[in-house]
């Protein structure tokens, strides 16, 4: 284990950024999101939750796939280059790291998504333990230990000191590169920090949600529940929950005409939208209740059914914070929990 004092972090960032792109939480107009580090960037690793997760570093909100040009009456197709430059994501929390695992299941299983795979390959994840978990956090429910997140490197911010521990080969390579910026440290402070965090997690209101009613079996059991009709009604059909979610992975593919031809790109889509998966014959889910149900059933029933029980929720709580109508997955889980009693 290594450590570096907080005041030297800028030097650390600069060192990481040499040869890598460095993404980390940056504050812009009052909000913190992952962004590219520059010398003038307002780095903010104190904010627990970035508004959007770190998902869009690996799976951008919109990305070009290829361009079609018309040359002398013929079409010429040029694919977008895959990520070649290595990059580092710093300050990613345990829940978001877990979110990457979910995305991997989608994008790295056959057929592999080349764009995503290239980014995963080139990216090194430096996670950060959560010193002050929030009311809306319930990562524990999904087996995430926010005191000891996964990642190529795990870091802890204890007081004015950042502790650094490489966990993988990628992480070790990065650590090596940083040379004597990091100094050796013992683990005592970190152990104490973990204990403190675990104690807080126990006091979180949603830490003990029961997932008994969920999992693969729920696909049949819960689909026709009358609860959906009650739960969905305040839903505005906006995409806030999907866009802040670290695991939502649906996208749409569209064309855009530019001065140099047609650009085909993909962009995040939301199952909450009425035109989601709209096809020539219409829509396979016509009511908002169906769309609302889809989102939660996907996260808590269909996904585990297809992925050995792995839920596609990581308990980050962003949707709990951001839903304009204060609807969220916690309320859904609790409603089904009560139903049984």
């Amino acid at each position, binding site marked *: 284990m290594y450590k570096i004092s907080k005041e030297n972090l800028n030097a650390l960032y600069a060192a990481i950024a040499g040869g890598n792109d460095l993404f980390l939480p940056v504050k812009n107009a009052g909000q913190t999101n992952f962004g590219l580090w520059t010398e003038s960037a307002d780095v903010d690793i104190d904010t627990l939750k970035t508004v959007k997760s770190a998902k869009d570093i690996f799976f951008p909100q919109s990305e070009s796939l290829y361009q079609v040009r*018309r040359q002398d*009456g013929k079409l010429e197709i040029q694919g977008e280059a895959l990520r070649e430059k290595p990059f580092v994501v710093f300050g990613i929390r345990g829940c978001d790291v877990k979110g990457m695992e979910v995305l991997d299941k989608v994008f790295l299983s056959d057929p592999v998504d080349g764009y995503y795979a290239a980014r995963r390959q080139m990216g090194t994840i430096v996670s950060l333990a959560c010193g002050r978990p929030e009311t809306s956090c319930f990562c524990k429910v999904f087996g995430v230990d926010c005191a000891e997140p996964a990642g190529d490197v795990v870091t802890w911010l204890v007081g004015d000191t950042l502790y650094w521990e490489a966990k993988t080969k990628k992480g070790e390579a990065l650590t090596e590169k940083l040379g004597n910026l990091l100094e050796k440290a013992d683990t005592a402070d970190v152990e104490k920090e973990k204990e403190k965090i675990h104690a807080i997690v126990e006091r979180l209101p949603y830490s003990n949600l029961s997932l008994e009613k969920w999992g693969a079996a729920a696909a049949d059991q819960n689909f026709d529940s009358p609860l959906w009709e009650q739960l969905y009604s305040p839903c505005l059909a906006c995409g806030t929950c999907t866009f802040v979610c670290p695991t939502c992975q649906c996208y749409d593919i569209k064309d855009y*005409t*530019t*001065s140099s031809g047609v650009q085909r790109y993909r962009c995040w889509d939301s199952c909450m939208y009425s035109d989601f998966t709209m096809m020539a014959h219409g829509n396979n889910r*016509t*009511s908002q209740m169906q769309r609302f149900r889809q989102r939660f059933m996907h996260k808590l029933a269909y996904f585990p059914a297809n992925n050995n029980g792995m839920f596609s929720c990581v308990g980050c709580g962003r949707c709990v914070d951001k839903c304009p109508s204060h609807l969220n997955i916690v309320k859904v889980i609790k409603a089904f929990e009560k139903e049984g009693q």
Partner: protein
Amino acid sequence: MRRIGVFVCHCGSNIAATVDVKKVVEMALQEQGVVHAEDYPYMCSEAGQVRIAEAIREHQLTGMVVCSCSPRMHEATFRKCAERNGLNPYLVEIANIREHCSWIHKDMAEATEKAVILMRAAVAKVHLNAPLQAGESAVTKRALVIGGGIAGIQTALDIADAGYKVDIVEKEPSIGGRMSQLDKTFPTLDCSACILTPKMVEAASHENITIHTWSEVEKVSGFVGNFTVDIRKKARYVDMDKCTGCGVCQEKCPSKKSLNEFNRGLNTRSAIYTPFAQAIPNVPVIDATACIKLKTGKCGICEKFCQVGAINYAQTDEIITEQYGAIVVATGFDTIKLDKYGEYAYGHSKDVITSLELERIMNAAGPTKGHLERLSDGKAPKEIVFIQCVGSRCSDDRGKPYCSKICCMYTAKHAMLIRDKYPDTNVTVFYIDVRTPGKNFDEFYRRAVEDYGVNYIKGQVGKVAPQPDGSLLVHGVDLLENKQILKKADMVVLATAIEPNADVRKIATMLTASIDTNNFLTEAHPKLRPVESPTAGVFLSGVCQGPKDIPETVAQAGAAAVKVIGLLAKDKLKTNPCTAKADELRCNGCSQCANVCPYGAISYETRLVNDHGIREDRRIAVVNSALCQGCGACTVTCPSGAMDLQGFSNRQLIAEVDAICR
């Protein structure tokens, strides 16, 4: 996938000299969907159209673009050509590479590049054009003529004689207009009333003509073939059906101090009056601002003396609504106000008068019973000076920039008449130019000089100074002699500029007919469509379109009538198919579009809609395509884009934008 043909016209050298037409053809063939492109010296020619026809057949075109002159010139030509050859006319677009390109650019490379872009925009639009079918609307076989002067009367008579109903709306108590105020007419010197009155009588007695005098047009809605017009019939206070026109009321009326409008305010009339003896209808009106009974409730003398009980003080304005297929504007003219011409002392001296006032003075029914006398002292003038171009041909804000056209001739007429009737009265005319184009016009003017000894001096008058002895000192100049002239005169007559009647702007707005900076109504084309307004179904007759003398006015009145007859002879009109249409799946039924529709073409109905499986009753906008004129105001008001305009759809316009900006 569209199969588009692009036809590039050289227009002789009009286009080809500045635009590389071969290059445009070459670039057109690069465009998606373009299966054929060619250039030709004159696409609009018979031979050019044959080539288009062949291309349509050979390449089975489903859309075409003609790169040529403005669509205002030949869009109709090419659309008809397409239609004849089995291609819907609305699948044709014009790229205007002449007026908007070759004629304004000098550099060939630059002009060619622009022509290519304009071609691309048209091709992009054609991709999205839909075949449209013109609808039909019925024609109301009745015409409205606004204004009952010689122009309006002649137009109405010609239309009526062709067998169609015509209504004349005249704001004065009688038809007749300016011509009824004139004494004699040039160049024949026949009596104005003698030739006008028979026409007035003919109009009044014509079975197809309805005359609304003392009436004004209040509101116009609808469109060509189907106008709906509200006419305000002002309270006359005299029952038209009962009155016999005996005239006793006018004699007995104690309120006699109102200025006589017909005599240009040179004398007074009673509160109940007919403007002149031959008035049609010969039914008086009561001037409510002068009538003692109407103002104070006391009097009622006319009622007492009226033997048929025609007086009705309780009458009020009445609005009648009528349907018309065509509207003719014949609102005529007035002389301009002279308050900005202090140097001519008009208004300071009673002996400085306008020519129109002289007409009344010379007229036997006028304020002096036809005796030429000074209004100040009643004496016969021995020296009369005429000043030409008062307020005409002025580039400052005091007058009008145009030539009033009639002044040279009527001044010659006045001078001649005076010299004829009063040989010992000297007449001097100060002129800038004497303009006498017209049959027998110059001869007429020369007679004034040669046979009647009228003294024509070239040079504008600078000032008219009233003298203590009652005479007028005219400061003039003789430019040919290069001498200044100071001339003592007993009377000065100003050839005052004429201008369109003050009401014409209001009427033009109601009709949405366009009007120029001088308030003359604009013709659809200055040479080829001189009696039509750009607004379909609205025609122009007389001076409202531009200065004219009587024969020209009558000729134009007849021309306007022919256009109206041509329109009314049709049972159906093809309507513009480029109308708005609401997409029922996206319409919110919010009514915003109806609020901006100038034609009331949008209504709402609740109907069952199947929106991708959701079936529900929805309030949906419905456009009446017979009423819609295709302005597109509704389309922008519609936030969801449900309302769209056929032929100028959102996607078509965006495609053009994209093509230009790419």
